[in-house]
């Protein structure tokens, strides 16, 4: 299953990062990015601990602290719903529940901080505290694409579109972008 993760050379990456500030965070990020299910398996966490000579309990501490790190295999597509104050006041809880229902995430607890992945591992639904796009609330992100001023009606359209596209191409999911990198398109910006 983890064919690509076994190709990724954790020990070589650790060698490159050793001694640098944040070596452990950097290594975990690289491991997660290289993993086809975009998560940190316990086996890989242990390898990271050995490679950097850090106690496994400390690696677990770091991996469980940061919401960015996934400890469960992720769906091929990730739907992230912003639960910040601005988005909340403009109905993001309803969007979250609708998305969960549409994608078949029965049993998803919208109050939980955790992510939920469909049984077929097609979709993961998760929340984020704020995208920093409060003026465009409510905001959701599908994979690396941000959709703003979302309504329940548009959510249905976007998600069924994503479902269709997903059926056609088994695309590699680009990793989340950061400030200074090429910005993802913000649909509807400035309207």
């Amino acid at each position, binding site marked *: 299953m983890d064919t690509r993760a076994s190709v990724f050379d954790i020990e070589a990456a650790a060698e490159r990062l050793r001694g640098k500030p944040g070596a452990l965070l950097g290594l975990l990020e690289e491991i997660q990015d290289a993993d086809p299910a975009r998560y940190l398996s*316990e086996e890989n966490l242990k390898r990271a601990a050995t490679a950097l000579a850090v*106690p496994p*309990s*400390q690696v*677990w501490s770091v991996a*469980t*602290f940061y919401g960015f790190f996934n400890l469960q295999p992720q769906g091929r597509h990730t739907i992230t719903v912003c639960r910040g104050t601005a988005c909340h006041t403009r109905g993001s809880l309803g969007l979250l529940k609708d998305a969960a229902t549409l994608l078949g995430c029965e049993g998803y607890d919208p109050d939980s*901080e955790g992510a939920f992945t469909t049984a077929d591992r097609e979709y993961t639904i998760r929340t984020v505290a704020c995208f920093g796009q409060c003026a465009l609330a409510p905001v959701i992100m599908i994979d690396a694409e941000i959709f703003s001023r979302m309504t329940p009606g548009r959510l249905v359209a976007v998600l069924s579109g994503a479902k269709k596209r997903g059926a056609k191409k088994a695309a590699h999911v680009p990793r989340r972008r950061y400030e200074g990198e090429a910005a993802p398109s913000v649909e509807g910006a400035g309207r």
Partner: protein
Amino acid sequence: MSDTITLSVDGRPVTVKAGSTILDACAACGVKIPTLCHLREVCSNASCGVCAVEVEGARGLVRSCVQQAREGMKVASASARVLESRRTVVELLLASHPEDCLSCLRQGSCELSQVAEQVGVRKRAYPPVRAPRKLDAISAAIVRDNDKCILCGRCIEVCREVQGVSAIDYAGRSQGSRVAVFGDRSLADSVCVSCGQCTVVCPTGALTERDETDEVLALLRDPDKVVIVETAPAIRASLGEALGMDPGALVTGKMAAALRRLGFARVFDTQFAADLTIMEEGSELLARIAGKAKGKLPMLTSCSPGWISFIETFYPELLPHVSSCKSPQQMFGAIAKSWWAEKEGIDPEKLVVVSIMPCTAKKAEAKRPEMNDAWRWWKAKGRESEPFQDVDYALSTRELARMVRRVGLDFARLPEEAFDDPLGASTGAATIFAASGGVMEAAVRTAYELVTGEPLPGIELKAVRGFEGVRSATLALAGKELTVGVAHTLKNARVVLDGIAAGTSPYTFVEIMTCPGGCVGGGGQPVLPDWEKRTLRAQAIYHEDRKLPLRKSHQNPAVATLYRDFLGQPLGHLSHELLHTEYKRKEVR
């Protein structure tokens, strides 16, 4: 710069050493600031906020456990704001703490409950916010109840900084914060060596020994069983403390009396087996030096099961250095259920061996699957039965104290009684096993005499006493210079092991004890120890040694009888079957 500074606490001047914390300065003038996360020598991460005081000019309240006192500082230790803040902090900690204090193992020794009383908590002020946590009761030695955890971090500090094990760390964040092992597994599936130091520093009932007093009391009242007891050397210097006497109270005779009143059929002494250990281990050392035994030099002692788990987990390639001798606890069990049971005509299946240990790792050691050599011995003689362990229950000092209280014994008023023969006979060499350096000193007392035929000049080997992390002594033995080492705590064990691995170790023989100060500071001892208490316990041990008529293991008459009637000679065939063992790499999944 002056060595002292003067500040004012509640309007009164106080002069303290420069570098003192505000907490220390307050203590120096008789003000006891409540603390929870702070523990001298172990932890000062200022996470709990209970020790806050007001300092003139400071913006907010100041955490007195970490803030240094300064010249001219004006501290208000009990202003209205301080008292209110302290109470609120504890009320918030209690919000998610279970209200089952009446059935908690730490009832009576819980720091959280004491601090709650001190700061005036009188109601449940806030509703619980944390989801219930799963009880981790899989380990043979330690039970972890994260519901009772207040996240003070003492256990994490002691595991990492004192022991160098790092089995546990904080995990998660916010309301999901918890103390966890890798993968949120059980301690039993971690690198934990069961040393129990976390259980003596935990301020609440979140980390405790596995309490087996109910099981043992039931067996003591079972007419079909013969329940005998062995007590480790360190217990005589700490049981009194656990029962409300002063730290360092020496209670050997009262302890024997209490055990007899609890219903043990024989009151024996692990010290018998400690003397036996010296005979075997000393012979093994001499054989290794002469190149006549397998195993490498420097030879490392094997009495301390936390240390054995540690080397099996972290340095398995160095296992050939470890003495093949079982620990005294296990030697006792193997001899009691073979030689003694046969001699007394007792069915070994009906014989129950209970040990009283200053230790939690001993619980795990007693349950090691290979520790059933008496059963093998009987099987070889043609007696078929279900396998039984050499030692059935290993109880901590704290558990024995609990049993004494349970049956209502007024411990301080008990008479002084003696141990039973023959497995209760021992020497002062065995007594000092309780303190770091004691096994080495006992071994040298005997080995010197066996090799040279002359008594060791000045029986006390003071160079290996004390609480320095790693100590050494060089002695002349039969024309050879012999350098011996002593290390206590597993962090110091790492220093010795790294030296051996690097080929720079100067030692021929090294004593390693898991806990700070050796068994007097064991993980099964009365909670919340400090160096003062450990020192008092060790002083009691050395005092006992000095007043005993026999102070060398080879002088133990019962051990001589055991060799004459049963074992033959040290390292003989039966010794190998019953008193020696093998170690193996411990894989953590």
